[in-house]
Each structure stands twice: as C-alpha cells, then as structure tokens.
C-alpha cells in the first residue's frame, strides 16, 4: 500500500497534463482534462481509488498514449513475454551456478576454486550494458553473417513457441552469463559454510560417496539460502530484464514500463509499480511456505 502511495507522490511531483495536451492547450483545456482524469481531486481520494482498483484487480483504466487500450490488456500482453524471457534464464542460472558453486566449494583453496572465483569476480566487474551490446553484436550480427542466415534476432519479437529460440535464446543466454558471477559466488559461500558442518563429517565417516554427500546431504541443507535467493529475484521475473527487453525490442513488461515512463503514461506506471509490490509480498509469503517444505524444523504458525 505504501508503495502505491510512494509512487503516486513521486509521479505527482510534476503536473503531467500540460505535457500530455501539447503546446496548444489553453489553461481551461488543461483544467478540464484534469477534471476528466480525476487529477484535481484531493490526493487521499486519488490514493484510495487507486488502492481500491488494485485490490479488486480493476485494470480498466485506459492508456494515455494509446486510447482504447486498457492497462489490463497491456498486462496480459506483456507479462507472458517477460516470463518467457526470465523463467528460463532464472532456471538456467540457478542450476548452473549452484553446480559451479558446489564444485568450487568442494575444491576449496585449490587451483580450480581459485580460477572459478577469479572468473566470477571478473564477470561481476563488467557492466551489464557491455554484455548486452557485445552479445548482440557477436551473437546476432556477426554469427548471422558467419552462418549466412540470421541465427538470432537482432531486434523484434513475434509470439509463438516455435519462434522462441530465434527471439529469446540469445537474451536468455546473456542474462544467464550476467547473473552467473554473483550467483556462483553466493552459492559457493553457502556451500563452503555447509562443508564445515558436523553432519558432513558424520556422512564421511559413514562412508558415503562424495557425490552423495554433495548432492544429497549438502544440497538439501543448503536449500534454505538457495530458496531465499530465488525468491528475492522472483518479483524481478515479471519486471523482466528492462535493459534486455529494450535492446532486443521485446515488448515485455520492463519495456512497457520504461516507455510509459518516458511518455508520461500515468496509469501504466502506477499499476505496474503496484503489481511489483503485490508480487513482492506474495514472494515473501511463498518463501516462508517453502522453508517449511524443505526444512521440517521450520513450522508454519
């Protein structure tokens, strides 16, 4: 709720109507438009109206930039696209970086570990933008020239699963590479913490095999931090990768939000931010539930 308030206040810093009406608008025109959009009501009334709309899932406001299209339609259009981009990315990132983190923790202090950590730090130090620009250049442009036909799309999107690889695979890969550094380091730290625990020593002395210790004992016990990590990133799934969507011309939620911001499209910004907030709260609740599933010691009350 507070988020809605915050966003609303931030947006009210400037009166958006004159910008929307263009330079020819007279003072009366502007006043009329304000009345029509309900912007001249007291702020708390606006706030509660917005809140009510959020709670009842009423997304029927029209877009300012495209009359006739409601925010709900925009959401229905952009959310699946964003999810198609971010879900595979999250899945791949988590699986790969948990594995690398485990290998690194297992080889702690040895050369392999040092190399992996070094590459993780190296990967963290390059700007996201650079990954995207060079990924786009080498991945779609140069590779396309090399093969003779376009392998990955440079810009644009078409719906349909058969087109997924063409439009989405490259952004997904880039996003995996970008988040790899952070995640690998994090999971390594988690795993290193686990290797010092007593139950690992017990498992060794029982004669369990290395792979069993790593994948059964350790992975299960490291589940809590892993879940927390994934849950934190969950709301970001829907926002998508704003930059990736921008670059590759994928009309997902991040792209919609960004163009709404640059076009002063009020309803979109308000609704989208509120949705993020709602998702955030949901993901916190979900995290607690999953804790109980993976760690029987945690009891839901």
């Amino acid at each position, binding site marked *: 709720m*507070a*988020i809605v308030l*915050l*966003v609303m206040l*931030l*947006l009210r*810093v*400037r009166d958006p109507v004159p910008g929307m009406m263009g330079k020819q608008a007279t003072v009366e025109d502007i006043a009329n438009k304000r009345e029509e959009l309900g912007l001249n009501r007291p702020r708390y009334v606006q706030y509660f109206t917005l809140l009510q709309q959020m709670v009842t899932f009423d997304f029927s406001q029209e877009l300012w930039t495209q009359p006739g299209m409601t925010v709900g339609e925009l959401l229905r259009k952009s959310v699946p696209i964003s999810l198609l981009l971010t879900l595979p990315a999250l899945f791949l990132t988590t699986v790969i970086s948990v594995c690398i983190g485990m290998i690194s923790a297992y080889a702690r202090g040895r050369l392999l570990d040092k190399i992996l950590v070094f590459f993780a*730090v*190296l990967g*963290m*130090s*390059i*700007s*996201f*933008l*650079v990954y995207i*620009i*060079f990924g786009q*250049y080498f991945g779609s*442009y140069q590779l396309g020239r090399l093969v003779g036909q376009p392998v990955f799309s440079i810009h644009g999107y078409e719906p349909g699963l058969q087109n997924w690889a063409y439009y989405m695979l490259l952004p997904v890969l880039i996003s995996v590479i970008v988040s790899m550094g952070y995640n690998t380091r*994090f999971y390594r*730290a*988690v795993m290193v*913490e686990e290797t010092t625990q007593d139950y690992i020593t017990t498992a060794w002395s029982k004669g369990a095999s290395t792979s069993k210790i790593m994948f059964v004992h350790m992975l299960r016990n490291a589940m809590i*931090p892993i879940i927390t990590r994934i849950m934190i990133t969950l*709301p*970001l799934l829907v*926002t998508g990768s*704003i*930059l990736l969507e921008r670059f590759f011309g994928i009309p997902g939620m991040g792209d919609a*939000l*960004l163009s709404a*911001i*640059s076009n002063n499209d009020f309803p979109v*910004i308000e609704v*989208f*931010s509120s949705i*993020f*907030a709602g998702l*955030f*709260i949901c993901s916190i609740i979900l995290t607690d539930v999953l804790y109980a599933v993976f760690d029987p010691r945690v009891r839901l009350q």
Partner: protein
Amino acid sequence: MLSRFLKSREAKKLFRDKSAIVAMVVIAGYLLVALAMMFDVVSRDDCANVVGPNSVPGFFLREEPERRYEIARTSLFGKVKRALEKSDPEAALAEVQLGKLRVADKTPAELQAIVDEAVAIQDQLKEAESLDDDPEMLSLLETFESITAELVAPLSGSDRFMHGVALLLGTDAQGRSILFRGVYSIKVAIQIGVVTALVSVLIGAVLGSAAGYFGGWVDALVVWLYTTFSSIPNLVLLVVIAYAFQATDSDVKDTLLPVYIAFCATFWIGTCRVVRGETMKLKQLEYVQAAKTAGFGSMRVLFRHVLPNTSHLLLINFSLLLIGAIKSEVILSYLGLGVKSQPSWGIMIRDAGNNGDVMTGFFWQIGTATALMFVLVLAFNILSDALQDAFDPKHL
C-alpha cells in the same frame, strides 16, 4: 583512532592479502586521476572540443585505405578548399580550424597551389575502383596524404604533445577525444560513487542502529520504510525518481543531484538492514549494559559504544555501494536519465551504440569506457572481498 585501526589484527590480515594491496593501488591511481580532473587537468571543454577527424582509431593505427582517403579528404583539406573558393580567402582561411589544428602560415596563392595538386591526385583516386589492392593507388594515396598534411600548421611544444595525447585512443563520431572523455568520466564516476556511498551508509547506519537499539515504534517505522523501498525493483525506483526530477524545470536537473538522490533512496536499505541486525546483537552484550548502568544517555551509548563497533560493516558496505553506484550510474546515463552535460561512461557507451560504432566494428569508444570501468570495478570487487574476509569472515 586510525593508528589503532592499522594495528588491529583485521587490518594486518587485510594488508597481508596481496591482491587487496594491488586493488588499493589501482583505486588510489583512479582517485589521483579524479583529483587531477577536479583541478581541470582535462576540463569539460576539452571533452566537448573537436580534436580531429571523426572516428579515428587509437594508437595512431593505420586504417583501411578507403578510410584513410576519407579522413585526408574531409579534414582540413576540404575546409581550405572551400575557404579558397570564397570571395575573401584571407578571412575565410583565418576561420578554418579543426580542433587545435590551423591552416599553415602561407599565402592563399601557395595554398591554392597545394590544393590544386591535391585535387589532381584526388581525381585519379576517385577513378580507382578499389584502393585496397592496387600498390600504385596506395602510393598515390600516400602522396595525397602528405600533400594535404602540408596545409596544416605544425603544432609546437606542449600543444603538439596534448594533440597526440588527445588522439591516443582515437576520436568518437563527433571528432572528440575518446581518451579525454573516458578519463573525465573517472571523475564523474568516482564523484557519484563516493557521494552516494557515503550518504547512503550514513543514512543506513543512523536509521539501522536507531531501529536496532530502541526497538518499539522506531524499529517498526524503519522496517516499514525499508520494506517499502525494497519492494520496488531497484532499477524501476531509480528510473522513477530520476524521472520525477527530470520533470522539474529548475536547474537541478542538469546537476548530479537527481542521480545522488535516486541512488541514496535505494542504496541505504542494505546497510540499514545489516546495521540493525548487528545493533540488536551488540545491545545484548555486557559492555553496552555496563555503559547503560553507568548512567550514560542512550544517544551516547548508541554513538560512542554501539556504532563504532559496526564500523567494519560500514566499511564493507561503503565499498559495495560504491561498486553499485558506479554500475548503476552507467545504466542510468545510458537510459538518458543520469548524467547530463558532461561525459560519463554510460553516455560513451550509448554514443557508441547509437552511432553504429559497434556495428561497423569501431570499438575504441565503447572499449575505452568498458576497460576503464572494468578495472575500477574489479579493483573495488577485490578490495571488498578482502575487506569481508578480514573483518567479517562469517558473512555469506
């Protein structure tokens, strides 16, 4: 206090770490450069001025013949030629300049002769289909280049040196020096990084320790505040705040203030959370109880006894936030919401993207920005790792 810090076991551990030392040296180097920029070694004007033909590669590399012809044709030669055609060649020639380069001190007649000679060669070059393979054409091109070079007044002493330095990493699509712009951006990045990291750490420390120490409604308020802020994706909040400022018509939007505020509003959260947890832990310790029993006021206990003991966390957070600020600055500037009216790595990367530099394989601009940023961020990453290892080894 500083000497006590330097003698502490943790600090010694830090200074034993070789990579940390290297990182600190690198960061010190960057700081020196930033300081030099403060004293206008490279001023903002230097970054905006045209120093040579556009898109020249760095390290004075020779280019493809086609491109060399293009550069020789479009630099001073073209301008001199046009000036000579005017009714008052003397006055027109005096105005001709390309960065610091001016027309050689010769009479219009002499210049005319050179231009005529060059035009003759140019005609031959035009007829050639490809300049790449033909050795005859290549030698012609070289004569063309040397003839057009005669039009330029040779630079003397420091000017010549500065011109060379400016062209060291080539020029961008507007003929501005990439090196100057890249180096000036160091100052911008460090300025933003230090200011936002400092302010965010301060806000986070004060709010976090107050919440942890007093509990009750203070705690509830602070926790509510940071959950609110953290539930909006970082980038979205940054963009919205930057946007809100952009909307105001004051002079503020041309300064760095919107960027500072946007960053501080999002960055204090992490510090606040960590400090709150640490304060809650410290509050239970005997020495705090003792200080309370001794009758010290809660402010004194908080600021003299509790906060100093979280300083290691503040240091680590400062270093982490600096990285975050530098990286986010680049992204915001790239989106056109961050730094304006002065160069920044984000703007350089954006320019490189927009001008099609990347598509034509001209990597000097984006490469410079990336490399400078990469080294700085890498150094800070290594340093914060070392800090974390030394001061807070249990951290995940």
